[in-house]
């Protein structure tokens, strides 16, 4: 295959045959590598029976020629050397240029690779934090300026984001609200039944849903849905130079893209939280009816007794704060995207992870804060 070898003493005749194409390159290389070369021998290559020789095939042949000449073998062609070899020489000027890997020669001194990694991480984290602060500042300034006129506040855009992040999330948020009450009710019923304190299941469901879990799980769902959507939308707009186009038109991308998203989410998330709260309480009623055989009137009475207006407000007041954290994380990461699709994926992931982290972290701060305030 590909090459026929005939030896007479120190003289080797090679007859190239078949189609020397890129797709057969592995077999061609193997056939050439199998030819033994001794110093002082002479190789004659015939190409009359060669049916096709593409650039990759010619490259393999040239590699063979170099190897042969390097081993001190005299090589000649029985006819004219193939044109493709000349093309290779035209493309590659004289000496071999270094491979691309070698050009990235900025190697670091060989200290501890860990130390370097930790240092690099710290520097990056610091720079990222500063940049984040700059982003927050720019958003604040833009928001302040937007307040000066209704037109610059972009109410239509805000409405669109309330719809996208709020209305379309109602089914999933309602379902989550119901499931939370199921979890709390079952878990607490199992524990409290032994103590004969069934009635406290209602307290746990009402306080748990209203104060903490309704808003927290709604925020986590929204972080996954809308935090990622913000980052992906803005990121692909960056890649597509749409953000540059806005800036070049004299339109502030923060004013039309970032602030309306933040405001839209800040309106939508509290509303979603109220829905989650309502469904959670309704679910509690349903479960108490069938799990504890508690009539609805007793459930309502007990809920009334267990909670105060502040229980509801303590939960709800967190929603706009969480909304801003989610929106900021999503928009910030989205606006950082540049150059590549891989970067987009990395930053969208980061946006969601950070949004959820910020929400939980802020919730912990709120818990401590409300405890100190004794509400």
């Amino acid at each position: 295959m590909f090459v026929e070898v005939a030896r007479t003493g120190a003289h080797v005749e090679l007859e190239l045959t078949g189609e020397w194409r890129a797709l057969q390159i592995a077999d061609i290389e193997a056939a050439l590598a199998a030819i033994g070369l001794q110093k002082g021998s002479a190789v004659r290559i015939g190409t009359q029976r060669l049916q096709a020789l593409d650039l990759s095939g010619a490259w393999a042949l040239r590699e063979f020629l170099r190897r042969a000449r390097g081993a001190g073998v005299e090589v000649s062609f029985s006819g004219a050397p193939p044109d493709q070899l000349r093309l290779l020489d035209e493309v590659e000027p004289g000496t071999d240029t270094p491979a691309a890997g070698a050009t990235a020669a900025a190697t670091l001194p060989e200290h501890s690779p860990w130390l370097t990694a930790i240092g690099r991480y710290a520097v990056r984290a610091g720079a990222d934090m500063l940049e984040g602060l700059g982003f927050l500042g720019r958003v604040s300034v833009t928001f302040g300026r937007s307040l000066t006129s209704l037109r610059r506040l972009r109410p239509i855009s805000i409405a669109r984001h309330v719809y996208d992040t709020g209305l379309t999330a109602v089914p999933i948020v309602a379902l989550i609200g119901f499931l939370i009450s199921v979890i709390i009710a079952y878990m607490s019923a199992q524990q409290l039944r032994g103590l004969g304190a069934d009635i406290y299941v209602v307290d746990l469901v009402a306080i748990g849903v209203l104060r903490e879990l309704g808003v927290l799980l709604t925020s986590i769902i929204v972080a996954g849905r809308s935090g990622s959507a913000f980052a992906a939308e803005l990121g692909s707009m960056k890649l597509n130079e749409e953000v540059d186009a806005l800036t070049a038109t004299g339109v502030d991308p923060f004013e039309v893209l970032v602030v309306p998203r933040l405001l839209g989410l800040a309106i939508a998330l509290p509303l979603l939280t109220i829905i989650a709260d309502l469904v959670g309480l309704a679910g509690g009623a349903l479960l108490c009816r069938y799990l504890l055989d508690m009539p609805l009137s007793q459930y309502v009475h007990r809920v009334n007794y267990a909670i105060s207006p502040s229980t509801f407000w303590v939960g709800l007041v967190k929603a706009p704060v969480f909304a801003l954290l989610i929106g900021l994380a999503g928009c910030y990461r989205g606006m950082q995207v540049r150059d590549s699709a891989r970067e987009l994926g990395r930053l969208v992931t980061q946006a969601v992870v950070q949004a959820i982290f910020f929400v939980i972290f802020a919730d912990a701060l709120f818990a401590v804060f409300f405890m100190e305030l004794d509400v």
Partner: protein
Amino acid sequence: MPPVLEVQGLVNRFGSQLVHDGLDMQVAQDEVFGIVGGSGAGKSVLLRTILGLQRPQAGVVRIEGLDITHMSPPQLRAVKARYGVSFQQGALYSGLTLLQNVQLPMVEHLELTAAALDELALLKIRLVGLPADAAAKYPAQLSGGMIKRAALARALSLDPSLLFLDEPTSGLDPVSAAAFDELVLYLQQHLRLTIVMITHDLDTIFRTCNRVGVIVDRRMESGTLASIVDNPHPWIQAYFHGERARARLGELHGA
């Protein structure tokens, strides 16, 4: 010799919109065939159909005698290794360096050592006139003209005998576009390529194409450049006899 590429009775329809209605086209070995047509005439749909990216409602597409419209995925994969495509915007993989972009088809279809991969890919990069140090760069770091060349290098990575170019010179300045035309001609002659290109660039058509196919009224009028120029169809007349084309026509008749 059978045509390298043959399209017969192609019908493409999207909903109620009929894009191609019995389109025929033939490209012979070693030809440079230009596809011309107004915006929305279905040039891109035609290319996508030929590349096997979408199946037509009716008709046959044969590449080197093989009908690709009724092929199983493994057969189609084998055919796809035999042609190269350069997309309009380059479509370079943004997360990979230029070298890796050129290597990707090789890694998928060939069995090569890492060193051989590097050398062959660098060879292709130099072949299209890019400096070797561009190999380590990411697409976002390349200029528009370099991206066109890089896309060509990737299209050539498997040494295809058939090459598709979608608007190879769009968005280039006239000097770069002319240089690109020369590059295409150089490669066509030295690598014995058959080239099918979609282009709007009259300079490119007059410089590089042997034959031209114009998509009008959902069919294709094709022929040598000289015969197409004299085609009485009003769109073709407007295209080749507009203000922009006059200077070029003079050259054609003068030659």
